[in-house]
Structure formats: C-alpha cells, structure tokens
C-alpha cells in the first residue's frame, strides 16, 4: 500500500497535525519499551475531544486493543484500532510532568545538555496545544500507546515493564478529521531510572472504506451506535 507520509519520533520527540479521516496510522516501536502519549481533538471543533471514560465504559474495558475505538465526548468514533501486535494500550495513567522527569531521571537543562535535555509529556503537550490555538486547560487523559498498566484487586497499579518488544506495532484508522498531538515521553509509571531512548516510527496510509463486517464496528453494539453518530455528523457536515 502507498505510504502517504512517514515520521520518526525520537525519544522525547513530539508532533501535532491535522490528519483527515480515512487514514491508517501505523505506529512501530523501533526499540523495546516504547510509550507514545496521544491526544485527539476534532480538527474543526476542538472542544470535542477524546474521552477516556466514555471510551472505556462503552466497551467494558480498562485498556485498548484491536477492535476497540477511541470515542469523543460527543459519542462519536474518532479513531479505531484495526491492528495490534501488543494486545494492551494504556489510557488511565496520564502523562509525565517536569517534576516527574526531574525526580526520576535527574535535573537536565538545555544550557548544559543541549538537545539531550529530557522532555516531559506535559511540556510537549503544552507546546503543541498552544501551536494549535489551545492551552493547557484543554488537557484530558491521553492514550499511551505501547504501555500496559493493569490493576490488582485493591486497585493498585501494575506497570508491565517488558510489554513492548522491538517492532511492536499498532495501527489506528482515523474515523474523523483529527487534530492529533503526539509526545514520545515516558509513561509516568515506568519504574526504570534511565530515560527510555525508544524511537517510534509513524507511517500513514490511505484506509479502505469501512465494510459492514469491520472488526471495530461489529465489536459491540455500543461501537455500532458510536459509528452511526460519526457517519451522521459527516452526512450533515458534507452535503
């Protein structure tokens, strides 16, 4: 299939841009132990955004994998997970702050380390939110691709350190026109004391039209209804 565009996100790297609906976004971990934090907004109306609770409760799950969709706070499917070699992506443990990074990995400054200084999730998001006319008030829980965080019976969080191998891969289909914000920064629960130096490759392809037997549409009746909301939105939008 024809690659439209590719990008390598270096450790600490970030990116934002508008990706139209009907694309496949294939993310590949170029080394083990990746974590890519992702925020999603409706490109044309960014007060509609990814909603972690609606996504989880509609699909009766506390994690994301193939067949799951990412829902907006207006009951629409923003993106669908159409392929996944990992089986679990986290959306409950958030992003790192400057304080988290300094505490865990030591204080780094551009003055001393130049571009080897260590980026935080919140600062990366801040830059890309402001670049797109938004601010930190628009922060909501992100999706952390490649990370596995489960809970025990008492609710204690368990970070699974060896979850993502080199070459781990997940593919999302865009079902709406999205403003996508990406930050290749550590999962806040990653216990390693060395800042993960894991690059992530993003390749974008055109997606095939959705078939009636699409695994994300047929995953559960809730997904079917959320897709109907999305299709109705575009039927009204594009006359």
């Amino acid at each position, binding site marked *: 299939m024809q690659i439209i565009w590719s990008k390598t996100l270096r450790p600490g790297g970030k990116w934002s841009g508008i990706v139209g609906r009907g694309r496949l976004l294939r993310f590949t971990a170029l080394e083990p132990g990746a974590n890519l934090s992702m925020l999603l907004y409706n490109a044309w109306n960014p007060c509609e955004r990814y909603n972690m609770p609606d996504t989880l409760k509609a699909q*009766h799950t506390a994690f994301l994998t193939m067949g799951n969709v990412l829902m907006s706070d207006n009951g629409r499917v923003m993106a669908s997970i159409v392929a996944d070699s990992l089986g679990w992506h986290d959306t409950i443990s958030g992003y790192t702050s400057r304080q988290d990074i300094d505490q865990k990995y030591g204080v780094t400054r551009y003055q001393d380390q130049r571009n080897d200084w260590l980026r935080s999730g919140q600062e990366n998001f801040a830059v890309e939110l402001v670049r797109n006319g938004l601010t930190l008030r628009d922060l909501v829980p992100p999706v952390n691709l490649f990370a596995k965080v489960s809970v025990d019976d008492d609710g204690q969080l368990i970070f699974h350190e060896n979850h993502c191998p080199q070459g781990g891969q997940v593919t999302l289909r865009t079902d709406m026109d999205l403003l996508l914000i990406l930050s290749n920064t550590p999962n806040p629960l990653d216990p390693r004391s060395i800042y993960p130096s894991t690059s992530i490759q993003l390749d974008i392809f055109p997606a095939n039209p959705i078939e009636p037997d699409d695994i994300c549409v047929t995953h559960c009746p809730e997904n079917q209804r959320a897709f109907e909301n999305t299709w109705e939105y575009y039927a009204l939008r594009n006359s």
Partner: protein
Amino acid sequence: MSLIESPRKVEDAIYDRLLPSGEGWTYELQPGQVLRIIDLEGNQAVDTLFYDADNLEDHYSAVATITGQHNLYLTTGTVLRAESGKALMRIVADTCGRHDTIGGACSAQSNGVRYDRSLEWMHNCRDTFMLQLSRYDDRLQKRDLAPNINFFMNVPVAPDGSLEFADGISAPGRYVELESLAHTLVLISNCPQLNNPCNAYNPTPIRLVIWEN
C-alpha cells in the same frame, strides 16, 4: 478498604443543604474548609469536578490523581490533583470505602451510545454541568469539562482489564469528607441516570455540609 469516620458534628457546620437528583451545585471552598457529601438513600452517583478557583483553567485531573497515588480508587488519604499537579483537595473521611474516577459523567451522547440512540433526550450529568457553567462564569466552557469523580459509584476493574459498572457498595447515610487544600471551585451534578442498575434506576437526593475546619 478501611472506613474512616469524621469527628465533625453537623450542628457546627456553616452550610447545610439538600441537593435533589438531577440538579447541579457550584461552591467556592476556601483553604481549610471541609465539605461532606452524604449519600442519603444509598448508591447515588455524585458526579463532581474541581477547579483551582484562582486559575479556572486548571481543572481536576483523573489521571494525575490516579498516578499520584498509584491506585485506581479514591478513599481516605487520596489527594485530588489538577492537571498542573496542584493538590486541590484531600479526602479526610470516608464511610463508603472507595469512589470511582474513570467512569466519567453521563451525557446525552453517552446514553445514546451505551443504551440506545433513542435515549439521547433524557436528562444527564453533562447537561447539568454545562447549565451550571453557563450560570457561574463566562470563563468556564465545555472545554473545561474533564473526566470527573463519581462519589459512591462502584466501577471495579479486574486484573484482566475488564470493567463493569457494578452494584453500589454505598448505603443510606454513608459519606465522604474532603478538606480543601486550596481555593477550590466545586462543581457537582447529582446524577439523574435512569438507565444504569448501579443506583437501582432510582436517583436520590444528597446532602452537602461544610465546616470552617
């Protein structure tokens, strides 16, 4: 799961009111003030958001609160954090046992997705939130609505990652008590949900009591 009772007496309170189901409430707490939310009839969901009242752009963060304590459930000792990491509130007493912060607030659209698209007309928490915001301050808009806390709601997550809304673990008269660590705006929607068995399809009033300390 340990239950911690409060030493405070209602007769010493500076504020005391009933909030029927389906209604909203906003209140600015000063540092040191204590808010008790009482589940009068049991298994009522109290959908609650917090804002830094000195910087309304900094809202409650479910994920910062969860990762800050390395635990999914909220109970006595939990510090409620904003997106900036700022500590807004601390739970100082809890006779229910634990509270949810990943189940979110019901909305017209989520009712449609979860149950049936014909149910979008029904009253819901996000409508209550938005009506309260429209009355409170022009600076607060839809973009300021983030994943909230559901006091008294039971949303257990299993080790295999499955998630269900389960029968409540609350009961008539159980309460949660929160001390404000900052100048904090509280936004409550006392949930009108009629489609979820967790409240036995019967939304009920809550009681809100505030002490100086």
